């Protein structure tokens, strides 16, 4: 089918053509109000056809997608993509789609057990999670979901790229509300992997209850400067809406990133090293090639605080005449479009913050006057272009002299992501994967950020 789409596009007049395909089979069980509520099974597959048309002063691309995979519709989509390419103004930097290459090496990202999972297996996990959370009588509501997913991604183009891989995904989250004497506490926890793990999901429920229970009877705090111990989810949320976007070569080239021109300079504290690693086993962002068929491999993005490079796809690397890092990804920041319905931009696979050592508690012990925070509310309102953000903190505990003392009523932080990255003093060792986008994760431990202005 993909080969047909490519052949058809070339016959219709494209200089180069690419067909990108994803096929996802998702099973999802929702928990609402302390009960397993609804099961959903979704099959989503489609093809995105991209063509390149050469012109006297450069080239253009056109794109069209379809979910009705008949030959007729494929022909229509190819025609539409070519029509778009014809009317677009030529871009002299647009040279070629991805050339044929050997796929990268990837750890284990396919679990047969996930393939065999049916709705009743997930319901059973849900029941165990509910049982676990009912042990605390203060729990007033539990909601969440458990999912398993089997995917195939494939890219074929007229330059000889013909690659496909399969992966699985498993995970879920839970959200717990506790009530006691008129006070309400909220807690949540999540787990994600490519492999089935019932025990981990039960732990998620247990941890969420513990967190929610600790949020009861919050006290106000004074505005001022605090050290923050930030958990993985919160850090991922902030990063995705600021730093990750700033690393995108497509945005850098359009002068829309504050990191433009800063390669080789200090952009984070010395304790911070980021590697975009698409090869790690069991991470949902691992893949042997990107959405244009470029092989992937681990790449250092920030080395001990020094910015080493940006995330490129075929277009941005051709434009700068630099190596393609294999970071063509298809997603939109706010929305729910399938990957086949989008043209590639750039993004990380698994942004790995190199771990040091220590658990959450070890980081807390290092803080005299601070706040432990699990998440941020409103991170999507950050200003990508400047890295400025102003967010409310979620699930907070006060840290006094190395001890977690009490939950906190309401507090916000404002700041600038480049500055925050320079204020990271300690990186823990408790790495965890958090989903940032489709086939895109952050793999990071808890971190300690020094001297953050908090308004309460």
């Amino acid at each position: 089918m993909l080969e047909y789409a490519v052949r058809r596009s070339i016959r219709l007049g494209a200089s180069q053509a690419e067909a990108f395909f994803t096929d996802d089979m998702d099973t999802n069980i929702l928990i609402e109000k302390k009960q397993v509520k609804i099961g959903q099974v979704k099959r989503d597959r489609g093809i995105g056809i991209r063509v390149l048309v050469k012109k006297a002063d450069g080239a253009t691309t056109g794109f069209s997608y379809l979910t009705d995979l008949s030959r007729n519709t494929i022909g229509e989509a190819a025609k539409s993509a070519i029509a778009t390419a014809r009317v677009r103004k030529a871009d002299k930097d647009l040279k070629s789609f991805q050339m044929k290459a050997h796929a990268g090496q990837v750890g284990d990202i396919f679990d047969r057990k996930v393939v065999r999972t049916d709705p009743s297996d997930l319901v059973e996990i849900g029941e165990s999670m509910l049982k676990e959370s009912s042990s605390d009588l203060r729990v007033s509501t539990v909601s969440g979901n458990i999912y398993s997913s089997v995917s195939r991604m494939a890219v074929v183009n007229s330059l000889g790229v013909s690659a496909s891989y399969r992966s699985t995904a498993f995970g879920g989250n839970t959200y717990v509300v506790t009530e006691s004497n008129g006070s309400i506490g909220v807690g949540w926890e999540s787990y994600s992997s490519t492999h089935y793990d019932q025990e981990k999901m039960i732990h998620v429920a247990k941890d969420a209850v513990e967190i929610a229970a600790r949020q009861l009877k919050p006290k106000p705090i004074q505005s001022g400067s605090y050290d923050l111990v930030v958990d993985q989810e919160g850090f991922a949320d902030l990063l995705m809406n600021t730093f990750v976007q700033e690393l995108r070569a497509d945005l850098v080239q359009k002068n829309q990133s504050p990191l433009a021109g800063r390669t080789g300079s200090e952009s984070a504290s010395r304790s911070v090293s980021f590697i975009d690693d698409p090869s790690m086993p069991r991470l949902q962002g691992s893949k042997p090639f990107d959405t244009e068929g470029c092989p992937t491999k681990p790449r250092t993005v920030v080395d001990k605080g020094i910015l080493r490079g940006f995330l490129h796809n075929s277009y941005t690397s051709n434009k700068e005449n630099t190596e393609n890092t294999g970071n063509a990804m298809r997603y939109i920041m706010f929305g729910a479009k399938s990957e086949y319905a989008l043209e590639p931009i750039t993004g990380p696979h698994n942004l790995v913050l190199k771990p040091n050592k220590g658990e959450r508690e070890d980081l807390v012990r290092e803080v005299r006057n601070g706040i432990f925070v699990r998440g941020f509310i409103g991170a999507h309102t950050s200003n990508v272009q400047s890295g400025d953000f102003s967010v409310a903190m979620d699930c907070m505990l006060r840290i006094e002299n190395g001890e977690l003392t009490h939950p906190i009523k309401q507090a916000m932080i404002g700041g600038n992501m480049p500055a925050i990255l320079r204020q990271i003093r300690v990186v823990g060792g408790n790495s965890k994967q958090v989903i940032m986008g489709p086939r895109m994760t952050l793999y990071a431990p808890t971190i300690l950020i020094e001297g953050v202005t908090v308004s309460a």
Partner: protein
Amino acid sequence: MVIAERAVRLSERLGAEYADVRVERMHSTEIRLTQDTFDQVASGVDQGIGIRVLYKGVWGFGSSTSLKPIDISKTVKAAFDAAKATGPHAKEKVALAKVPMAKRTVATSVRMPMQSVSMEQKMKLTSETSAAARIDDRIASVTVTYNDSSGETVLATSEGTRLVGKPSRGSIVVVAVAKSGEKVGAIRERDGMQSGFELFEKVDPRGLAKKAAERALKLLGATHAPSGRFTAVADQKLAGVLAHEAIGHASEADHVITGESVLKDKIGQRVGSDLVTMYDDSTYPGGWGTAVYDSEGVLAERRLIIEKGFLKGYILNREAAAQLGMEPNGGARAQSFVHRPIVRMSNTYLTSRDQSLEELLEDVDCGVYLKGSRGGQVDTAKGSFQFSAEEGYLIEKGQLSKPLSDVSLSGMTLETLMSIDGVADDFQISIGLCGKGGQVATTGMGSPHIRIKNAVIGGK
């Protein structure tokens, strides 16, 4: 309709107490122009089926992008398997509030069908919009996004409802960024309508672009906002976001039922000051969230949520209406066939009172004026929220003074509603997108200017 009816019959044969099937074929276009280069010019067709079955009091849902008979049978079966797996564990059985059967075709009034307009013309509109924002050398970047979607939707239920929809909508979003030295100011303006391409006779993309650029330039002179408690005056956009995020989400009946809403058990009680009246209105003419029927085939209504400070109602789907013993009001929406219908807002707004903006400002000695919205988020259970304004001004002795950047408003919903002590007479509604349960919905958010005492303002 034939496909949908076949899936309904198949569901019934397998023992469904109730089934609804949505089949859609939607054409969409997305054009994004960044810094005068098109980085997304995409069109496509989304086609598929979503099947929801109620079996022994439990829901199952299946969706597929394939409409082949064999795949439809598989999807129906998958929905049943999901329901059967959940069934033995469900403590509460689902009941649905009774609603009249509906048979109708609802078409958006269209003069210039989206698909009859060439990609070239849509791209031209996008570039002209971008050019209109280039009013000053300090405008460092302009991004314009054009979107349209149109097509046909079908809903068939086992109760005999047969609805055909012919929706069509289009929108344009402009983000202008001004830079000067280290200072950066970003502003987003957007507008759209449910209409054919002729909507751009009413919506003025170039005007939006110019406005975005002018506002972004103003931010260059702004200082960071102070932090602490102030009297806040919010413009129509930000107050609309407050209505949507803080109150709207808490009035969604699914949150009420799961205990994740501060408005739970508060019908008839005071939840805000006398000045607060709020609707969630599916009937608002031309609204971004307007619909004749909801995704369950229920007539969509104008829902009174708060009247003069007293909580009057919730947004309901059929299941929630039955559970709460209330009359259904057509508040279920699904983003597309891929998703099941869930309780959603439509056009949510606070109504006007009789003061002018000047009157709201005049007795403020020291306060903050917040304008525009970069979005927000809410925890409906705790009733806490956070919104970021695009721009702000200090209010000193009743007058707007210094411009402020990166200013946000956070607080507790009920406390904030009680603290609204001024509502102006200058109602405006704008378009927005709302995310919930992995689905995105087009919503309208509206309000006049409002004043909030003792609000928590966060700066940098």
